[in-house]
């Protein structure tokens, strides 16, 4: 009976394999292609966002990319061996911008790169002349330096006249 039942419900085959096996394989190939496509997209997104000047990302992604950009601040294994995009003076990214906002001090003077507007010193609270350190330039230095070697003096005849030129532009020994 059983055999007849099998014969009755015989599984269709193709090249000696049941058809459902082929379907699974096709499905697997399609899904693999989808996964590879998604992976490529993910890598592309991460690369482009890491090198863009300012990234506008949803909050969860910001935290993800914080770990991505700053591996030293993250315990996530995700961050291992990913270079910082902002080392060597690359453009400022969103993460650095956030850190600047968080860590900005009222006393920080603006560091200006020549191309940018540098008027952000207006945001510094005016505190008057208080807070400046006055130096006693007449005081003896704590570590006594050896007197420097005198700068050389060149002798030149200029327009029939002997002239001494003290080369104070040269580095002293």
């Amino acid at each position, binding site marked *: 009976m059983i055999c007849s039942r099998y014969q009755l419900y015989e599984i269709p085959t193709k090249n000696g394999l049941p058809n459902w096996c082929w379907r699974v394989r096709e499905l697997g190939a399609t899904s693999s292609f989808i996964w590879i496509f998604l992976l490529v997209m993910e890598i592309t997104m991460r690369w482009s966002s890491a090198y863009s000047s300012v990234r506008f990302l949803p909050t969860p992604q910001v935290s993800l990319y914080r770990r991505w950009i700053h591996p030293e601040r993250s315990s996530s294994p995700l961050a291992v061996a990913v270079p910082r995009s902002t080392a060597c003076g690359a453009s400022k990214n969103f993460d650095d911008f956030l850190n600047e906002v968080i860590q900005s001090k009222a006393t920080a003077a603006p*560091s200006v790169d*020549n191309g940018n507007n*540098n008027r952000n*010193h207006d945001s510094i609270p005016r505190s008057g002349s208080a807070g400046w350190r006055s130096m006693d330039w007449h005081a003896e*230095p704590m570590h006594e330096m050896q007197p420097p070697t005198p700068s050389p003096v060149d002798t030149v005849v200029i327009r029939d006249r002997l002239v*001494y030129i*003290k080369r104070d532009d040269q580095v002293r020994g």
Partner: protein
Amino acid sequence: MLSLHCLDSEQFPSCIVSYGGPQSNSMLAIAAVVHYQNSRESPGDTVPRCKRFVYYTKKLPRFLRNQPSGNLFRALSLGMELVELANDEYQNLLSSAERSVDTAPPQLPPPVYGDSVWIPQGGACSMALRGTEGLAEEIYEFWSCHGAHQPLSVCFPGGTCCTALLVHRALQRRKRRVLLEKNATPPLDIEVVVIPCVGDEAYARRQMLHLSQHVFGTTAVREHEDSLPAILKPAPEDTQRTGTESNSARPLDYFRFGEPEVHILETFRELRDEYDVVVDLLYGAPAWTLLFRHWTSSSTSASWTPWDPDAPIDGRRVLYVHSGGLEGINSQLLRYKYKKLVDMEEIQWPGRNPASLDE
């Protein structure tokens, strides 16, 4: 800068703030000292040093902003933080700084509270005392060995005229000390002459009086005036009105600072090509141009003459103090090129092989 350089790492302030022109020699010197402090390693240091140098200047010209060069490029490379201010803002903020030498303008907050030091333009404050005393000592010692008791005029190109004033005062003190010493020879006849390269005679006098009052105390103005170095006139009295330079119909006057001038360029080329003396185009060449106007009458003097502040190099030996600034020659030559006074071949470009030009 010697005083600054001598400071121990504990004494050295966290931040130095100064202001002035974008190609200032003083700016580069401070940047170098601060960079040296940061790069110097001590056994006790656990964290890297991060001394700062903040420099205020007027809005940079477009060509300089796009391509920093000369002293500005070097100072930025050394970690200087540049703050550009609009002209009116610069004047408002720093005009009070010109009134008081050693104190920062009241409306300027310290970048690092409690540990920021203010250095005025050109380092013209009591900080310069130690270095200028050393320089005066060197000049006096050199002339006592090589001068054979001849009268000497020490010529300084002057911006703030700080160096000239302080060396002059140090030489005066040295001479007084020699006079007080028993069985000593009479002091050497050494006088200081400042050649104004920024502004005119009145400006130079004002700058020196101002500095003198702040550095040496608030004694009578008259006393300060008596102890100023001689200021070289734009030309000798007899030629001042008529003008003796070629193609010069107007009365001889001082030069406008930084303005390309044919006479300055001629002097620069003459010194470089004929005497192998290279000076900068902002201070050195204008100073020598003014000196050459007095040179004609001086060279005919057969014997030594007594000191005359109105003719300070007549009948005297001349010692010129080279103030450096050679890094800025190319950027200044570019300005001459824009005025079609020099060819491109005279300007040294990075990466260009001069030998290939000769072929």
